[in-house]
C-alpha cells in the first residue's frame, strides 16, 4: 500500500531532476560556445599585419612606415598567405582582397610615406641655399653658362670640377640634418636648378581581415 502511493511522487521527482539536468547541460554548452574564440584566424591576421609592417616587408621603408608607391595589390599578393580569404585595407581603403573574409580583424597603426618632387631655383646671391625640408638625395642641374667649381653640402664636397661643373647630377644628402648647399664659383640666379625629394607622411590604420 505504501509503495503504491509513492509511485506518482517518484515519477514527478524523476521528471524534475531530468529537466534540471537537461537545463544545466544547455547552459554549460552555451557557456563553452561563448568562451570558444576563433584563435586560429585571429593569430593569422595578427601575424600577417605584423609581417606587412616589419622592416624587411616588401611594403615598408622602415618599421611601420609604408611606402605609398609599393602599396599595390601586386605587391601584397606575395606577402599574404595564399590559402585563406584575406582582405588588407589601409586607411579604410581596401588595397587587396581575395575571397570574402568575415573573420577577425587585426588593426595596426602605420604611417604612409610618399616622396614628393620639389623644384627650386636658388637665388645664389650669397652662394648658399638651404633646402627647407630633409631629403636623402637631390638633383642639381647646372647650365653651361655658369662657372661653378665646387658644390658643397654642409661643407662636404659633393661636386668638383676646376673647369666648371656642368650638367645634371644626383647627389646623396644626409637624412639626419638639414642640408645647406653651397655653390662656389661664379653663378647667377637661373643658372642652377635643385630638385629635392622630401617625404610627406600621413597616418593610416592597417586592417587585416582573415578567415571565412
Amino acid at each position: 500500500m505504501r509503495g503504491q502511493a509513492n509511485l506518482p511522487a517518484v515519477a514527478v521527482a524523476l521528471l524534475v531532476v531530468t529537466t534540471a539536468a537537461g537545463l544545466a547541460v544547455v547552459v554549460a554548452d552555451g557557456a563553452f560556445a561563448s568562451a570558444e574564440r576563433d584563435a586560429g584566424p585571429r593569430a593569422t591576421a595578427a601575424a600577417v599585419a605584423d609581417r606587412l609592417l616589419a622592416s624587411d616587408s616588401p611594403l615598408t621603408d622602415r618599421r611601420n612606415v609604408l611606402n605609398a608607391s609599393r602599396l599595390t595589390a601586386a605587391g601584397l599578393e606575395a606577402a599574404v598567405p595564399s590559402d585563406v580569404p584575406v582582405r588588407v585595407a589601409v586607411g579604410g581603403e581596401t588595397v587587396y582582397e581575395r575571397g570574402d573574409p568575415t573573420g577577425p580583424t587585426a588593426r595596426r597603426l602605420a604611417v604612409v610615406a610618399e616622396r614628393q618632387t620639389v623644384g627650386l631655383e636658388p637665388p645664389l646671391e650669397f652662394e648658399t641655399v638651404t633646402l627647407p625640408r630633409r631629403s636623402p638625395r637631390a638633383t642639381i642641374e647646372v647650365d653651361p653658362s655658369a662657372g661653378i667649381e665646387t658644390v658643397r653640402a654642409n661643407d662636404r664636397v659633393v661636386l668638383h670640377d676646376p673647369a666648371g661643373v656642368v650638367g645634371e647630377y644626383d647627389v646623396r644628402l644626409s637624412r639626419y640634418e638639414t642640408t645647406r648647399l653651397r655653390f662656389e664659383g661664379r653663378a647667377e640666379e637661373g643658372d642652377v636648378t635643385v630638385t629635392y625629394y622630401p617625404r610627406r607622411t600621413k597616418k593610416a590604420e592597417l586592417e587585416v581581415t582573415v578567415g571565412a
Partner: protein
Amino acid sequence: MRDRGQLSLSIVEAAVGVVFILAVTAGFALGVPAADTETPQLSAYAEDAATVLAGEPPRHAGETRLSEVTRSADAFDRERDALERRVDRILADNLMYRVGTPHGAVGHERPAGAPTGRATVPTPNGEVTIWVWYV
C-alpha cells in the same frame, strides 16, 4: 502517517538533487570570465606609435624624435607641443594617450580601471613610455 501531511521522500530527494545540479550550472553561467580582447589591441597600438616615433628624425638635435625630448628639460619644454601634435596625428581618433619622459609627460591623465596598452622605448637618456586607451 497520512494524517501528518509529510512530503514524500522522493520529492525531497529530487529537490536536493536539483539544488546540486543548479549549483554546478551556476558555476558555468557565472564563472567563465569574458576574455580581455582590448588590452592586446591597445598594446599593439602603443607599440606601433612608439615604433613610428622612435624611427622619426628629430626636429633639431639628437638621433630620433624621442631621444631629442629626453636630452634635457629645456629640450622637452621646447618640443612638448610638437610631440603632442605628432602623437595626436599618429594615433587613431578613438584613442587617448599619454607619453611619459624623464622630464615630464604630455597627453591626458590616465583613467583608473580602463584597459590600457603600454609600450616603452629606451633612449640614451632614459625611457619613454606611451600609454594608450580607448576614449
